């Protein structure tokens, strides 16, 4: 007779469940001790990283884990505001987080959530373009706030077989001809920023109440044209491939992604009113219990060979200059130049960098107000 077949008295049942509960609790305590114990200067182990899916290639992570015993536990990052909110909640449960340009100083650093570091201490940083080590807004008395990774302006892509007249502005997204044919990523503050640019406002994250009223009008025109909100950049590309969307917003390189996926030949442009854009980086979380693993990991993961491979897989410019040389040597210079790889100093100043501004909260409320039921 097995234990499951036995008839148990209430006392016996309570004894059994009590024992199971105590074992589980003990396991939890031991696990917690283990986590706390990991806060030392261990150079092997697993760290928690919240990032976008294009910041890593799994096979590269596997190789790094094999070579160095540094493993990664990754959670997907959908947007800057979400990552910032999440880090404020969990703090030391994350060790590394990715973030866009102005979110780094204006949110993460301002709240003391990240640990600046001497970027020149990292040998691999010598492979970066020098300007990427000197972004003034990432410098503080304690060091550099993030390790620079990639960048892109937000562009509009369209299917020329469906969208006529060679558009070159934001207004095309509002054209009633394209009702239900626009797909944008589900990032409310960015969608409001696009419409602010369409309205001609230079500071789309610092809108006054009057400007917000104007932007509301633009959003109301945009609403019927939006087929859906893509959860990830890949969803926008998939919509273009399937033919559901004729116009999408996105990063550099979507022409190739759509074509590689079997979709139509599409065109992309930077809207003439100006655009928003991003350059991102990797931050070390101040309270991260495994933060000692981050610098050794960066030394491995930011090597030019790996960054060149990442460029070919994800198609947007990165800040690793040596990787550009590798791409050139591999005969991929045309592709790199098409994606403006070496043009960051010229292009970055032309775009408004993503970041929380004085109107971010109102922008999100405005988005809900417009995209709620009218």
């Amino acid at each position, binding site marked *: 007779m097995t234990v499951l077949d036995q008839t148990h008295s209430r006392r016996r049942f309570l004894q059994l469940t009590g024992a199971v509960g105590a074992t589980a609790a003990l396991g939890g305590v031991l696990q917690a001790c283990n986590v706390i114990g990991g806060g030392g200067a261990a150079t092997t182990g697993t760290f928690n990283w919240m990032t976008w899916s294009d910041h890593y290639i799994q096979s590269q992570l596997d190789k790094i884990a094999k070579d160095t015993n540094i493993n990664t536990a990754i959670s997907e990052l959908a947007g800057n505001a979400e990552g910032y909110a999440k880090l404020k909640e969990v703090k030391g449960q994350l060790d590394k987080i990715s973030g866009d340009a102005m979110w780094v100083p204006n949110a993460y650093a301002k709240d003391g959530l990240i640990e600046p570091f001497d970027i020149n201490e990292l040998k691999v940083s010598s492979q970066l373009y020098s300007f990427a080590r000197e972004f003034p807004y990432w410098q503080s008395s304690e060091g550099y706030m993030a390790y620079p990774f990639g960048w892109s302006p937000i562009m509009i892509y369209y299917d020329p077989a469906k969208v006529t007249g060679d558009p070159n502005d934001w207004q095309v997204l509002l054209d009633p001809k394209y009702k239900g044919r626009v797909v944008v990523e589900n990032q409310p503050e960015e969608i409001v920023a696009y419409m602010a640019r369409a309205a001609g406002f230079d500071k789309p994250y610092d809108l006054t109440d009057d400007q917000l009223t104007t932007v509301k009008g633009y959003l109301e025109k945009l609403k019927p044209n939006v087929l859906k909100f893509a959860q990830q950049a890949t969803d926008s590309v998939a919509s273009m491939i399937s*033919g559901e969307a004729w116009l999408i917003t996105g990063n550099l390189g979507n022409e190739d992604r759509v074509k590689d996926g079997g979709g139509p030949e599409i065109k992309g442009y930077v809207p003439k009113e100006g655009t928003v854009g991003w350059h991102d980086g990797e931050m070390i979380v101040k309270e991260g219990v495994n933060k000692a693993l981050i610098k050794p990991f960066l030394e491995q993961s930011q090597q030019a060979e790996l960054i060149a491979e990442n460029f070919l897989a994800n198609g947007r410019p990165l800040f690793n200059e040596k990787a550009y040389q590798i791409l050139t040597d591999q005969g991929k210079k045309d592709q790199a130049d098409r994606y403006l790889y070496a043009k960051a100093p010229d292009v970055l100043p032309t775009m408004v960098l993503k970041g929380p501004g004085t109107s971010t909260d109102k922008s999100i409320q405005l988005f809900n107000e417009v995209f709620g039921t009218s």
Partner: protein
Amino acid sequence: MTAEVVGGVDVAPPTVASRGRTARLRELAPFLPAGLLLGVLFFVPLAVMFIFSLWTTNANLDIVPTWNLDNYAQFFQTGAYVRTLAKTVAMGAAVTTICLLFSLAVAYFLARYISRRWARVALLVIIVPFWSSYLLRVYSWQAILGEKGALNQVLMGLGLISEPSRLFVYNDIGTFIVLTYVYLPFAILVLYASLERFDYTQLTAAQDLGASPSRAFRYILLPQIRPGLITAAIFVFIPILGEFLTPSMVGGASGLLIANLIQTFFKNALVPQGAALGLLIVAFVTVLLIIFRKYLRVEDVYARG
């Protein structure tokens, strides 16, 4: 009442009141684990949410503990929020109605006309979709209802339409179809459990006494399965009030429901606003449950005059 002498010490017997309290505590003791669980995992978070809902967020997305009712006021002052809640309730009511109608027909057929063995096989088939993830099922519906999806191919193959229709997805119709698909099995299972226990000879007796089949159905069957109907309605309607995945995946930009707005607030660090909206839904659901509770009693059909 006299004191007993136990071991040389006078011991007063327990009074009736203290005996009653002890007995009452002993009766309640088994509920302690469940009560603790409910308190820690439900009431404490709810209280935290309530506190957050009374605070505000500044432009830097920091939560500022200034006590006020602004977030609640904002809900009632913003037409789009109220309309979105009304639309969510309407969507829930529509899906619940169609689910109850379909599930009543299916469950009645299974309970009355199919052998118990085959009915169980049929129920197994009904719950097979639950073996795959919710997300996967909704993705599948995107593929079925989309412009190049199976439904359009079938309709075009039958010559009913000449070009792919965009009627079925990225709108409220798409949300309605998928929510009905997702929640129908819950309703069927609940109603089958009610109908399986029903004594169908009562219907025959009613008809022997002159009632038409529909009258017998209405006055004999329905009152006795009312708790099942109400439970099925609760199982379908209430989760729909919190649905955000289906609307975001097949509802498109025009098909957002109230939970999508709440999600946007939470995802973008506007926790107090999200908490207030969430608590309004909780309040709404609580009122509904109080109303429904009254109807969960089985009516004594024989006592009616």
